[in-house]
């Protein structure tokens, strides 16, 4: 921070542009900065939209004990993904040391890397749940985390929606009602057994060119 800049900031704070002008100390620059500061201070203060507080309060997650969260973690299916796209150097290094020996084949690494550069499609998920207090979306696209995508309720008809950015591909997902009840989407394109007696909904996200 140059002493000259410090002096200018102090003058702007003390609103002494007139004095500076009279003294002829860089008056032109100071006057222009003063004009900008005045405009910034005069920017209108907007009101947050009506119903904002209610919307926030309705979106707050339940506070859960550490033990409950740990149990959730143990019960939740986990998908381990390797995404090395932005670490091309690391990929090259791994390939160079003979990664095949560890069972990770080069063509698989390339496929994952290409996928992360694929275009993003904004997919909207919709479910009708008039009695629900909270609806979230979980799927293999977010490691089945149920606290990441919160649906917003349309006031009148009990329809909940959320828009999620996804790379083109095939995804399994479920809705979670009131933080507890896993619910299969009744309007899903197709379904797949999860191996535990339930069915996951399945969605195919086409690339923007195909959509």
């Amino acid at each position, binding site marked *: *921070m140059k002493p000259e800049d410090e002096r200018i900031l102090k003058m702007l704070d003390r609103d002494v542009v007139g004095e500076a002008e009279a003294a002829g100390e860089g008056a032109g620059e100071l006057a*222009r900065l003063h004009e900008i500061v005045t405009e910034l201070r005069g*920017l209108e203060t*907007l*009101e947050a939209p009506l119903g*904002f*507080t209610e919307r926030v*309060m309705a979106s*707050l997650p339940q506070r859960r004990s550490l033990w409950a969260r740990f149990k959730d973690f143990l019960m939740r299916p986990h998908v381990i993904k390797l995404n090395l796209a932005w670490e091309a150097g690391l990929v090259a290094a791994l390939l160079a040391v003979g990664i095949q020996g560890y069972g990770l084949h080069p063509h698989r690494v390339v496929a994952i890397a290409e996928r992360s550069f694929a275009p993003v499609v904004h997919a909207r998920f919709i479910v009708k749940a008039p009695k629900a207090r909270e609806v979230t979306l979980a799927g293999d696209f977010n490691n089945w985390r149920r606290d990441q995508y919160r649906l917003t309720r349309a006031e009148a008809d009990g329809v909940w929606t959320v828009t999620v950015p996804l790379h083109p591909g095939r995804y399994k997902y479920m809705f979670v009602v009131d933080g507890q009840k896993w619910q299969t989407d009744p309007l899903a394109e197709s379904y797949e057994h999860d191996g535990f007696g339930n069915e996951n909904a399945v969605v195919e996200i086409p690339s923007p060119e195909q959509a």
Partner: protein
Amino acid sequence: MAEVSEGVLVEEILAGNKDAYRILVERYKNVVFNLAYRMTGSPEDALDISQETFIRAYQSLSRFRVGEKFFTWLYTICINVSKNFLRQKSRRLRLQGAVYEETIGRDISGPGAEECLLKCEEASQLQGMLLEVPEHYRAAVLLRYKDGLSYEEISHVLGITVSGAKMRVKRGLDKLRSLKQEKGATEP
């Protein structure tokens, strides 16, 4: 009636009284919404960012230290959410060239209409220029002159030194000045 202190409210919320959070949201919703709006130039984006800010603040409330100012803590979250949002958004569209319609929905007829229109136009121009200022300078300038934070408070919000805060404010102002000169030179 005296305002309930933020420390007391935070303790209440952590003890399980979720409704106490409503008081904090009511108290700070406008400042957070405005900061998000000035950072993004879009009311819709500002709404999403403000909502996300309050949700994240609630989720990490246990990390709020007693004695800390709640609003500087909230501002830090809001600035971080805004920056993440802008980074994601910049992949999808360029901000420059977007239209900023601040006058929509406002009654500008009647006495003083011309003055109001002029002010709206000035404010809209300034908002457009703000969006051309790099994010870290933009945040510093807004916190200093729109929200009236001290340099100490800005340094706390942005996680930098006081000297760094002053430097960012000055560079932000310099950038706005040069943008204003450019626009003045190109206008007929």
